[in-house]
């Protein structure tokens, strides 16, 4: 089974040096695109591969790049940004890529920058990833020293500056337009779209923001082609995916598998199933802001379309498992407290609605819930849903809540009726 994203990971946990990376075929994609492909041809190639964004939204990557104005009469500098602000609860896949093979990300970013003719690139990294910061600084210095970055890359005439930028905190910086505001030295509140960043982004210039894992796929697509990339997957969506599992399973961890691997295979074959003495109740497949999947969904393929049909969202593909001895109300309360805290405060439904939701869940969990609270929570899932807020944070927060009210209604009502948490 091919595992292009993780095949350079060293068993001692250290990152491959530039020389090791080159020895394994690294930076060949950069040389190839600069030598043989026009920028537009690179974008077409990525479009043909059916690579979908790995940050959570699953937007087709090549299509996103194609929105950047090209040609001689366009605004400069153009920017490319790797969103390395991984803070979705339950998500830990980008950390593995950043620590395990920093040159892979850098190479993917150089190819992507060439495709959109960017002049400057940033890696926007969360503060907590200290090891990744060190390894990325080192890898950037190596790339510069070997003429893969800076002026006239490999004698091609194309130049690119790339910088590591460490965030000062807040989950909201992971939202692409809020990230732009953070880079501009402002509060990380979102911007309305349109205009989209591809047209007017950082400092009002054309900007592409993609997830770390998304960029890591790019050198492999260049090296082996779109058809090869599509063949790695079990579905029409191309490539492999770094899937993760956390919670009370026997072997929590992360694995690179074909996109479209089933929930069952991930949970039982790789994570070893739920611990002895516990039973599987549900799982959130893509980090905190996705809906629950139940036992009846275990054979759902974990690709964007299939998970959506099952009423949830693939998101980051890092699954959080809820066993039968974990209280669903407590779990959802923890999630909503997170979202309430991380609201940037910009728009009213999110700023006022999320803390109210958390307060209600706190009451229900502690045995002080009222019957009318169920209705209040339902109303929030409508008023904070898509289209009612300035960005996707609140709608994301409503995904697990709405799903829990649907699947675990009886558990909520029991807390209210019995005035206590039956799981304690």
């Amino acid at each position, binding site marked *: 089974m091919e595992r292009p994203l993780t095949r350079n990971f060293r068993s001692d946990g250290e990152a491959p040096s530039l020389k090791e990376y080159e020895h394994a075929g690294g930076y060949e994609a950069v040389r190839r695109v600069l030598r043989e492909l026009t920028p537009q041809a690179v974008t077409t190639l990525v479009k043909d591969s059916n690579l979908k964004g790995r940050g959570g939204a699953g937007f087709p990557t090549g299509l996103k790049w194609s929105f950047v104005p090209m040609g001689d009469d366009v605004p400069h500098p153009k920017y490319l940004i790797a969103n390395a602000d*991984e*803070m*979705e*609860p*339950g*998500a*830990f896949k*980008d*950390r593995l890529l950043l620590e395990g093979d920093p040159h892979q990300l850098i190479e993917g970013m150089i190819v992507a920058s060439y495709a959109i003719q960017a002049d400057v690139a940033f890696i926007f990294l*969360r*503060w*907590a*990833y*200290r*090891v990744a910061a060190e390894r990325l600084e080192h890898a950037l210095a190596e790339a510069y020293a070997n003429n893969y970055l800076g002026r006239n890359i490999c004698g091609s005439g194309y130049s690119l500056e790339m*910088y590591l930028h*460490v*965030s*000062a*905190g*807040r*989950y909201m910086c992971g939202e692409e337009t809020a990230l732009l505001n*953070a880079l*501009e*030295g*402002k*509060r*990380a509140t979102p911007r309305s779209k349109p205009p989209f960043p591809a047209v007017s982004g950082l*400092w009002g210039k054309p900007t592409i923001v993609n997830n770390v894992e998304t960029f890591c796929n790019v050198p492999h697509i260049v090296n082996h082609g779109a058809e090869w990339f599509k063949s790695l997957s079990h579905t029409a969506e191309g490539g492999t995916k770094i899937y*993760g*599992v*956390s*919670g*009370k399973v026997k072997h*929590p*961890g*992360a694995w690179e598998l074909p996109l479209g691997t089933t929930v069952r295979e991930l949970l039982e074959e790789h994570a070893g199933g739920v611990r002895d003495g516990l039973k599987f109740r549900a799982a959130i497949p893509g980090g*905190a802001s996705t809906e629950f999947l139940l036992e009846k969904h275990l054979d759902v393929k974990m690709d964007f379309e299939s998970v959506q049909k099952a009423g949830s969202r693939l998101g980051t593909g*890092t699954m*959080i498992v*809820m066993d039968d001895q*974990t209280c669903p109300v*407590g*779990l959802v309360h*923890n*999630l909503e407290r*997170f979202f309430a*805290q*991380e609201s*940037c405060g910009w728009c009213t439904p999110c700023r006022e609605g999320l803390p109210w939701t958390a307060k209600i869940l706190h009451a229900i969990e502690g045995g002080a819930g009222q019957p009318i609270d169920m209705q209040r929570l339902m109303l929030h899932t409508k008023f904070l849903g898509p289209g009612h807020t300035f960005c996707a944070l609140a709608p994301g927060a409503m995904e697990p809540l709405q799903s829990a009210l649907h699947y675990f209604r009886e558990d909520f009502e029991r807390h209210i009726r019995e005035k206590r948490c039956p799981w304690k």
Partner: protein
Amino acid sequence: MLTEEIKHEIEIEMHHYPRKQAVCIEALKVIQRHRGWVSDESIRELAEFLEMTPDELDSVATFYSKILRRPVGTHVIWICDSVSCWIMGYDSLRERLTQLLGTKLGETSSDGHFTLLPNVCLGACDHAPVLMIGDDLHQDVEADKIEAILNRYKE
């Protein structure tokens, strides 16, 4: 007064930005590296240096969770309180820590060694529960082993 060293470090960052004001987050990080936290006086000094109002600057400073607007102890313990760590034992870990330190979340131990702060998901969920002490990530932390970990930071 902002020292020459601090001003110099901020001026290096300014090369990447079209306007002075845009460097404010990086500047706050510089001040925090030197002084451990960002006081009201630092806000006033930095605002003057960057030609912003103190309120403008503080609205940015108080937004970002890693800019500390209160003094902290020698070591900051960032304990993850997000969902996977919550499932795997955050509550008992937090209880043990508050017991050992004699503080609540958000407070500093009386000997000034440790400040205990909550943090959102630290991105190591397959090794939950986790916490960071300064720059160090600690994984698979057990409540009855945390005292030994803290002792390593007391030298």
